[in-house]
């Protein structure tokens, strides 16, 4: 996993979604019990990733939104250098 991308995503989640930084790990379940994100948050994540990396995640599968790790993997695979 690209740590640099993961760290940027983490910072974006903390800023945009007011998730307490100390409660957010790379493997925290974003939409489950751990953090409890919902559909409005997913819209915000899509905008945030587009903004940071130019990667469009709209319409992509739920499995990509599981954690910072899966988001990072998606970005790595779809990022155009």
């Amino acid at each position, binding site marked *: 996993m690209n740590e640099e991308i993961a760290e940027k995503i983490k910072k974006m989640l903390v800023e*945009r*979604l*007011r*998730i*307490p930084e100390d*409660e957010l790990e790379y493997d925290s379940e974003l939409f489950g019990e751990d*953090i*409890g*994100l919902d559909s*409005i*948050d997913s*819209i*915000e994540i899509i*905008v945030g990733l587009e*903004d940071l990396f130019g990667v469009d995640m709209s319409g992509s599968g739920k499995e990509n939104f599981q954690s910072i790790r899966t988001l990072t993997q998606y970005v790595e695979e779809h990022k155009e250098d």
Partner: protein
Amino acid sequence: MPESIKRCVITGMGLVCALGDDAASCAASAFSGKSGIKDVASFATDGCYSHKGAEVALSDDELCKDGYDRTTLLCIKAAGEAIADAGLDIDSEDRKRIGVILGTCIGGAASIDKYYTDSYEGRAADKNDILKMPASAIANNVAAHFGLDGITANIVNACAAGTMSLADACDVIRSGKADVFIAGGCDSFSSLAYAGFHALHALSEKECSPFNHSDGITIGEGSGVLIIESYEHAAARGAKIYCDVLGAGVSSDAYHITAPRPDGEGQMSAIRRAAANSCVDLSEIDYINAHGTGTSKNDEAEFLSLNTLFGSDPDLSVSSTKSMTGHCLGAAGSIEAVLTVEAIRRGEVPPTVGYEGDDFEVLEEKSGGIDFIANEKKAKDLKVCMSNSFAFGGNNASIIFSKEPRDIKNAGNTDPIYITGIGEVTGVMAEGASDYRADLSPELFKKHEVKTAFLRKLDRFSELVLLSGIEALADAQIKVDDTNSGDVGIVVGTSDGPITEIVNFQKLVIEKGIENGSAFMFPNTVYNAAGGYLSIFTGIKGYNVTIANGFQAGLQSVMHACEVIRRGEEDIMLAGGTDELTDIEHELYENAGLLGNGKDSGIVLGEGSVSLILESAKSAEARGSKKYAQIAGYATARHSVPYDKMTGTEDALSRAIGEALESAGIKADDVSVIYGFADGISIVDDIMNSAVSEIFTNGVEIRNVRTETGEARAASAALSLARAAKDMEGLTGDYAMAVSFGAGGIYTAVVLKKA
């Protein structure tokens, strides 16, 4: 047998929206199925997936030359028409008996946009724009424009505000505190709302098509104003009467901050409450002007609610006029009220437009037996009609109009009301700081089992309301569950609302474009989000209103809540005042020239939230509640001055105090302590000191919460009452009073008695 409540009648109407510049032209379009939706002209929408809007063609100056925010100007235009239509000659009326109650969602968003755009683009921001920002300014400015000295309020419950304002106006008339109201709603077309709904993917790409394709809303702007007056007053001046306003119902979903409950429970509760408060059977309703926004979530929930309640009632017709006016947010309920009254007058049901081809068949399947009117109006004798409005925050409101007079039995009582719980969140001045800020660390919320996943959604204003609200409930030992969730209600009072979140959202839109609004922040930009979160967390499903009306809103909310209990609508009300303080508010107050030393050169800002539990005697006895004090009396009085002035309003303060004493049945000498409102603005402090020394000729002890916690605006007003309640035990006499003021010349006084 209980007595009947006062008849409230509609004697005048005014309307401005995308359909036209007056009620007649709007109605001509609406009843011929002509939509006002076009491509957005107010700003560029190049980067957006939708370009549709329903704007008013008139410029600010063409609406009115007073120089107010566009939302206010739209309202002045509609109100002028309504007053003329009602033949109301203000010069020959008692101006103190004519009030203004308006609904708004976005308030002064256009002025917020202008102020921060100027600043972003390197121009000098105009400090005059600062006083145009809060929703609090609107009703007072409209009253000042027409020279009215009656009660004002701004009901800021997002998209239900326009309907709730009409209900509130009727309630005040029925309580005997006014004869006539300029009532309705107003909202301008704003980048704030457009960017917000765009971010939520809630805008329809094409013209919105409620109950049809349901792929989103089209935003509109406008104002609908109705002249509502007591029948006696209307009859005495020989006014024409369009129809009666019967009762209304207000409820909360306690479910989600933007989405309605999918099972429609909250919507059905509002509809049932409206019918019960109107003494009307659901089967008597001939037409419902639906909320019908065009989002799939709303339309599905509303189809379900209507089908569940009205089943296969072939006598009920339903339509959504938003298909032509767009969704005018806080003005929506008022615009739809005008069109519903017009429907009664014409004997015609206006259509929902935009159906073609297979749409009709699909509609027939979805509508069950209910007669949904598509594309073309239908002739029908309409006797009893309902209008529905459902809002962000899970607020639901329904109101009923009747062609003929109907007898409504008074379900209320005059039993004592007690303060049985208090939650206080106040600020402290840190070393080296220049204002008082509250500690809102997560631990304080965790103590009350507020989870991180819930808490992180909240902006500062919502955090304040939530914390004081749950502390007040805990203090009163109230547990909300299925057995009492509908018997508890909420009134949030505020001066400035969630201005930090609004400004941060607006700045983002200015910097990054309308297509880049934040879906996360947008729900918090509506003033009633805080009350919504409180209802979601606690499970409170009863009455829920947010009033923005200057600093005194923290006391006006208590009065409002007491009236809800008196009418028999709820047993327990949670009411109080909240205002937040961040660097954003600090800068705005500083730039407006209002800051000083708190003694004679201006205010020292504070923040906080104070919630009081108000409880009927019956409920307090049944629960064995601890009683801080009894609410003995209250009054609000105004003398119209512009929102940035207070000079010349001494008489209104004297009236508020005098009428509050009178309603408590006591004399000035009976009051031992008065909690005043001196805050360092000389003109305000002089008005208070002179009125108090004039009325309390034998002297009275004056206490002031602002010396310890700063000018926390609506929170200070509510804190004054909370502290008076807590002081009761140690008082030599039996009575204490709390008084507060609001910009624009409005005052509220509340009298407490030892319980």
